[in-house]
């Protein structure tokens, strides 16, 4: 493995809390043993990591006001935890938490808490299938452990914000979240990545592990709003036990490189997952979503919808795998991926995959790539809508089905104008949508 991450790895080795040190050093060993993926690596066929290979400084703690970063976070009425460049910012975070919810930062964990965290940390992700998982382990100095006690229904969403602000040179940060939703509990978690459009590269290596225990329901949102040179490689790894429900929504605006793996492992009968996503690269941006639903046990259901709009010289990759293991009978799994190309230089590579080892299952997938429907465009124009405005409306309409599925009203209200404006720099054109 080339040593472009050396500074961050050394930093973690000397700064990680003592109880995390075995994780850090094992992670480093594994990372250094592996090779960076190439175009010949099937899972990286369409995504090159050449942009990553530069020396990175370690993210610095900066005391800044959000408005100085010209960032606005959704007004969610949420419990909020904010990190800037990988460092916890108390002044931006709220500390009171409802009964039955425990939120512990790795760096602050007591002996008892760290023992609890260590029980779950790294057990949900399959490290040998994901090269960058070991890098995440190897660069850990902090992270968030969120635990919801059995039976507890958390009324307010819990929002975790990771901001990449500017530094003087290319830098790297590590994000790690571990959620354990206890049996029959119910909670909403919003992961929010935001960044300042900076000239120099920032590389976030992120990893979230979700354990949804029997009968629990987890509403999960992962918003990637960083743009420009803010690279992100990482993913979400979830495990569902019997009758658990995970509703997971993903959004990615583009940046030079974004690669997100979402893996859902069904380990208990009767579990259900709804996985939805939207990706909108433009300019020279690149987004790669690799999703994998591991149906390992019978009687589970999954429904997955991803929509992408790719403009300018941008490129997008979607790989949606559904794996029905032997004996996972009565599984129902559906996947739909639709893409719009809005420029002659844009590119989409999609591969919905089915791997099925049980016969009594209902599985289907569909994928399309096309441009905006000319007849719809024409229809709108005959009704007096300008071509530009009609395009914005139709683009928005293309993803609206997925955005409408966002259950959190305040979040939906925050996202709609943000997305509408993504399709036009002229706010007037999006006025009917926001």
């Amino acid at each position, binding site marked *: 493995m080339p040593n472009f991450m050396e500074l961050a790895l050394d930093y973690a080795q000397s700064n990680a809390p003592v109880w995390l040190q075995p994780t850090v050093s094992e992670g480093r060993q594994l990372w250094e043993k592996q090779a960076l993926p190439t175009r010949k690596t099937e899972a990286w066929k369409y995504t090159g990591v050449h942009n990553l290979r530069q020396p990175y400084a370690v993210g610095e703690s900066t005391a800044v006001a959000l408005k100085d970063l010209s960032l606005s976070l959704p007004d969610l009425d949420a419990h909020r935890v904010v990190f800037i460049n990988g460092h916890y910012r108390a002044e931006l975070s709220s500390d009171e938490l409802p009964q039955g919810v425990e939120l512990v930062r790795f760096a602050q964990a007591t002996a008892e808490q760290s023992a609890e965290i260590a029980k779950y940390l790294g057990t949900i992700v399959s490290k040998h299938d994901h090269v960058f998982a070991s890098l995440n382990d190897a660069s850990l100095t902090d992270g968030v452990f969120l635990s919801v006690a059995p039976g507890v229904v958390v009324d307010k969403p819990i929002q975790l914000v990771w901001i990449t602000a500017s530094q003087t040179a290319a830098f790297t940060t590590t994000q790690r979240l571990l959620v354990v939703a206890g049996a029959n509990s119910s909670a909403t978690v919003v992961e929010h990545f935001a960044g300042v459009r900076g000239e120099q590269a920032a590389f976030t290596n992120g990893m979230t592990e979700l354990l949804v225990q029997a009968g629990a329901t987890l509403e999960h949102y992962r918003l990637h709003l960083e743009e420009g040179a803010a690279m992100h490689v990482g993913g979400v790894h979830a495990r569902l036990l019997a009758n658990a429900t995970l509703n997971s929504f993903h959004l990615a605006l583009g940046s030079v490189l974004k690669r997100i793996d979402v893996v859902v492992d069904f380990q208990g009968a009767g579990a259900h997952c709804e996985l939805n996503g939207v990706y909108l690269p433009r300019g020279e941006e690149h987004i790669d979503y690799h999703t994998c639903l591991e149906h390992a046990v019978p009687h589970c259901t999954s429904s997955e919808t991803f929509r992408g709009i790719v403009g300018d010289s941008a490129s997008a990759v979607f790989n949606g795998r559904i794996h029905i293991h032997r004996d996972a009978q009565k599984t129902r799994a559906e996947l739909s991926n639709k893409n719009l190309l809005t*420029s002659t230089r844009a590119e989409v590579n999609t*591969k919905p995959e089915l791997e099925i080892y049980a016969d009594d299952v209902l599985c289907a997938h569909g994928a399309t790539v*096309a441009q905006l429907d000319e007849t719809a465009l024409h229809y709108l124009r005959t009704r007096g809508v300008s071509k530009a405005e009609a395009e914005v409306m139709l683009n928005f309409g293309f993803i609206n089905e997925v955005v409408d599925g966002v259950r959190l009203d305040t979040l939906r209200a925050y996202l709609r104008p943000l997305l509408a404006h993504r399709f036009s720099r002229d706010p007037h054109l999006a006025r009917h949508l926001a």
Partner: protein
Amino acid sequence: MSQETIDKAIDKEYAAGFVSDIESETLPPGLDEDVVRFISAKKGEPEWMLEWRLEAYRTWREMEEPEWAHVHYPEIDFEEVSYYSSPKSMEDGPKSLDEVDPELLATYEKLGIPLHEQEMLAGVAVDAVFDSVSVATTFRSKLAEAGVIFCPISEAVHEYPELIKKYMGSVVPRRDNYYAALNSAVFSDGSFVFIPKGVRCPMELSTYFRINEAKTGQFERTLIIAEEGSHVSYLEGCTAPMRDENQLHAAVVELVAMDDAEIKYSTVQNWYPGDAEGRGGIYNFVTKRGVAHRNAKISWTQVETGSAVTWKYPSCILRGDNSVGEFYSVALTNNLQQADTGTKMIHLGKNTRSTIISKGISAGKSSNAYRGLVRMSPKAQGARNYTQCDSLLIGDRCAAHTFPYIESRNPSAVIEHEATTSKVSDDQLYLCQQRGLDAEKAVSMIVNGFCKEVFKELPMEFAVEAGKLLEVSLEGSVG
């Protein structure tokens, strides 16, 4: 429905599994430059052909066997394979059918392919390839009247060297992949077809391939050239005896459809699939590809029921504007058979169109994968693809996979892909049985219904044959 009934319904014998007692000259196993020279000399080839083979051989030596397909088999020892086998009676080459060994003719009769012209299927010309050599090509004079050339490729090397030099390897280059390189080095025989400008081939052309000798590989090579505005329909059938060891079959098929030409290529592949325990059977590693020029159309239809392992992706390069590519496939695997098959549609020209209909049926403990690529290049303005991939599972120990690669770099191109999986449902069987049909008939009817969209693409008499073949191949899978 009980596993027993299903089993009963699918368990039938491989009907083409007999061995013909024919004395043959077979090269000892192993592959080196001398073997390549031997094969070339055997065919009395000119120097340029030998050089072409040797270059392929050297390329092959440097290449690695592909491992990405969803199939598993013990490593093939390429030194254990014999690369040439010919019936002794063919040594001096028969001048006409009357000189062909009666035992050989009997073999083809037994397979239902009479080679005597008066007995033949009306309107179908047949080239029969037995192990490494072509034994008979029928209706040649009638075809010649229309200007159509239909002959063994070994003969074409002598008779039409300019065409061979120009087109052989032009669609599937020697270094295209491991098996294509191997084939280019040691190919023994196969069919050559040339349809001149504006000619509509007056009859169906077909080739029957038969592996007879033990421990031999078969490496046939087919080249079809359809000149401007011409039209041809070609069908190949394949069978092999039942043997305990695996046998290698690595063929290359190249199609060239010039402007406004149309080539319809149909395959009924029924190589020996091995027994219920997975012993024996053919390794079928085949490269098939066609280039379609302006307004041309290439249509692949395949019914794949045989072989222990299949690795095959008949593809279309849609080079010319408005060209059309089609792929209709039924792949059935039973017992321990494995298939990784599909197609590539490479859209280069404007307004090119492609359709992919793939029906995979898995039974027993078999594994059946569809692997496909649809690529829209930046210049493929207005191109369209529609893909429908359906899998049917029979029994709970089999596997069905779908790996469609979709790549688009043109916003005006439209790609639609859909895939489903299903099983033969208990309710469907019950309805059929309530109406008096037994389980076997019911399953075979349901499976045939599942494959209907593909069968209707086959020439009539072969569609019937394909339906029966499915029925036989499914035996023992109903339970």
